[in-house]
């Protein structure tokens, strides 16, 4: 499966997790692609942490507005019912539990649902931005990522080795190979991608995975 195809699979699968009326924040990268699979009928409101809700699609070329970008700095539009606010309000929304679902990438996720997705700058990483607040504040945290690093080493590990973004806040992990739920008992394998077997997933996962009797095929 190519990288684009697997990113699309992840994004489509995550879109199916969203429920009508929910307020959702999509992180940069693969999470942003989830927006492509959200239809108006789903009645989802997208939050952009730089200061608005009602995020819409990219503008037509030439119709960009300088003051209207998403959290990745790309020109965007807003939908009817959108509104703008300051950073204090934006993070009151985030930290105060008013975001139903946040979707974000990760470098590592562990058995306790802790995740690492930023790096101490002294070691070359960019800083945490708004990610730590999103992970702590959102009612539901979904991680969207490749199942392994480029060199094939597992990103789902017994215990994060990198600086964590938050402890025990992840609810669901969606990768190009599997859907894994974080439960009190540990990580439970819920679905495998088309053409991927349970043993494939186990081989590429360093963390202990609970495999229930029924593991479905991932429907995207």
């Amino acid at each position: 499966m190519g990288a684009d195809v697997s990113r699309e699979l992840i994004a489509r699968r995550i879109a199916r997790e969203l429920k009508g009326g929910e307020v959702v924040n999509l992180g940069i990268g693969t999470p942003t692609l989830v927006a492509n699979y959200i239809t108006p009928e789903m009645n989802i409101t997208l939050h952009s942490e730089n200061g608005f809700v009602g995020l819409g699609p990219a503008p037509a070329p030439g119709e960009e507005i300088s003051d209207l970008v998403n959290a990745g700095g790309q020109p965007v539009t807003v939908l009817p019912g959108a509104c703008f606010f300051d950073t204090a309000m934006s993070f009151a929304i985030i930290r105060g539990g008013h975001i139903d679902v946040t979707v974000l990438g990760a470098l590592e996720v562990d058995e306790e649902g802790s995740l690492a997705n930023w790096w101490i700058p002294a070691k070359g990483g960019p800083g945490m931005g708004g990610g730590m607040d999103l992970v702590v504040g959102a009612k539901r945290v979904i991680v969207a990522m490749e199942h392994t690093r480029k060199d094939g080493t597992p990103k789902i590990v017994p215990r994060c080795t990198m600086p964590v973004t938050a402890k025990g806040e992840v609810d669901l992990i969606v990768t190009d190979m599997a859907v894994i739920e974080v439960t009190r008992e540990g990580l439970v394998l819920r679905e495998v991608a088309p053409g991927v077997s349970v043993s494939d997933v186990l081989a590429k996962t360093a963390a202990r995975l609970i495999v229930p009797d029924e593991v479905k095929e991932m429907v995207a």
Partner: protein
Amino acid sequence: MSKVKSIAEAVDLLHDGMTVMLPGFLGVGTPKAFIDAICAKGIRDLTVIYNDGAFPDVGFGKLVRRGLVRKLIGTHIGTNPELVKLVAEKKIDLELYPQGTLVEKIRAAGAGLGGVLTPTGVGTAVEEGKTIMEIGGKTYLLELPLHADVALLYAHIGDTFGNLVYRRAARNFNPIMATAADLVIAEVANLVEAGEIDPDHVMTPGIFVDVVVRGCE
């Protein structure tokens, strides 16, 4: 009494070594003309409170490229490779906070609060050196106020008294930083007389603003 000055007059109020609050998110909401004036005059050794690294040729990035920044207090520098390099080489100091924490620290300074308790950062490197408190079974970090010598705002509309209206996502840190600096200078794209803005639409009360300068769109 009008607070309007020329950019040259306003830049004269700044000096080397100041702590400067700069609103903006990847450059959107940051004053443009005023940044150019600081670069032209070469006010240096600045500690800048700014969300991110912007881009090398945009807003805060211009100050970095011009060699005027001693330290950044922010949340994320990944979009500016020049800044990342300078930080790695220890030529610019970096103090990082989660974005929601940074804005609450600034708000606390402006609102006369001694600090706020946030759950963000608990169990992470962010908690190092901070007071940790448990309340009702939940753990919080005590985050202290963050104040600056000067805040440089950018507004779409401003009146001669300093009342400001921001546009779209350019609002971001502007209204909060307006409250937390000794000297507040606002660059406004459109300057109007006091009374022309609907009092219900004002986003930053003029009482916070000391100087208004005309900027560009």
